[in-house]
């Protein structure tokens, strides 16, 4: 194998790493959601009639997530649109999931390959761009 294994931790900071930050203030220091999952391309959908307003312990960001998820939206898109780090979005989504305010649709497993008609649609869609 040509690649090298991870080096000492202090070498993790370099040109492509951002500044050391405190992004988890919003989550009260929690860095992991209560449940596993939330793939970058998992789709989040608010529960019908989900109403996060009366819920104690939720931040404004929780409410923004629910509002944005009134229609299906991918985890990566949520992070980009709300300008939150993906790790933070996952923790907040875990809170919402635990309260039944959202449902999460994980992508199909690794073994899954899209069928021929989907690949064709992608190729012609790309050509048409």
């Amino acid at each position, binding site marked *: 194998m040509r690649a*090298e*294994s991870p080096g000492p931790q202090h070498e993790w900071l370099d040109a492509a790493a951002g500044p*050391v930050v405190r*992004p988890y203030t919003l989550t*009260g220091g929690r860095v992991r959601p209560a449940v596993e999952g939330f793939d970058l*391309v998992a789709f989040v959908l608010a529960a019908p009639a989900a109403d996060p307003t009366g819920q104690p312990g939720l931040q404004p960001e929780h409410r923004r997530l629910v509002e944005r998820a009134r229609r299906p939206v991918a985890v990566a898109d949520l992070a980009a649109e709300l300008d939150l780090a993906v790790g933070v979005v996952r923790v907040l989504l875990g809170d919402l999931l635990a309260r039944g305010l959202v449902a999460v649709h994980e*992508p199909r497993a690794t073994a899954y390959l899209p069928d021929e008609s*989907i690949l064709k649609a992608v190729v012609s869609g*790309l050509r048409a761009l």
Partner: protein
Amino acid sequence: MDSVRSDPPGSAPRIPLALKILIAGGFGAGKTTLVSALSEVRPLQTEEILTGAGIGTDDVSGVEQKATTTVAMDFGRITINEDLQVYLFGTPGQDRFWFLWDELAFGALGAVVLADTRRLADCFPSIDYFEQRNIPFVVGVNCFEGSRRFSLESVRDALDLDPDVPMVLCDARDRQSGKLLLISLVEHVARQRGEPVPVP
């Protein structure tokens, strides 16, 4: 995307199918440039990683400053139609962010490896990674000014690539060129399954 979907009243909205494509290559090979050229959304800026002190802990209260840093991650999206979206993820430049790679690669359709002919060895780790995991990939040979013109065959030899791995000369700044890279990847995926995608 804000197009109005007309789901029948009372039915749950349809969940789109998301296809994940990774954009890999060494530092400066053009990953960020390619994702921005292709994406319909602005690139996502950061993703946290935990340093050694934080891994394995579930709570960083009080130690968050030591425990976290950010790594730039490129993210882009191409809407094929309302039920089908292609997500592009640039792999972090450092080979040592393996755990991020593994998450990105989970369920991926395939990858584009950008090769800079001035620094070919920089893409070896990416090629190794995808070969070892049987993730289909194509190699985009990025044409930087001032780089010697290599024949694709000499680049293929230098990279020790299988003959069936497509290689495409590209300019990551150019959307059309980027599109051709993705098309060659999807066609490669289709060929690997023995189902050629006919040219319309």
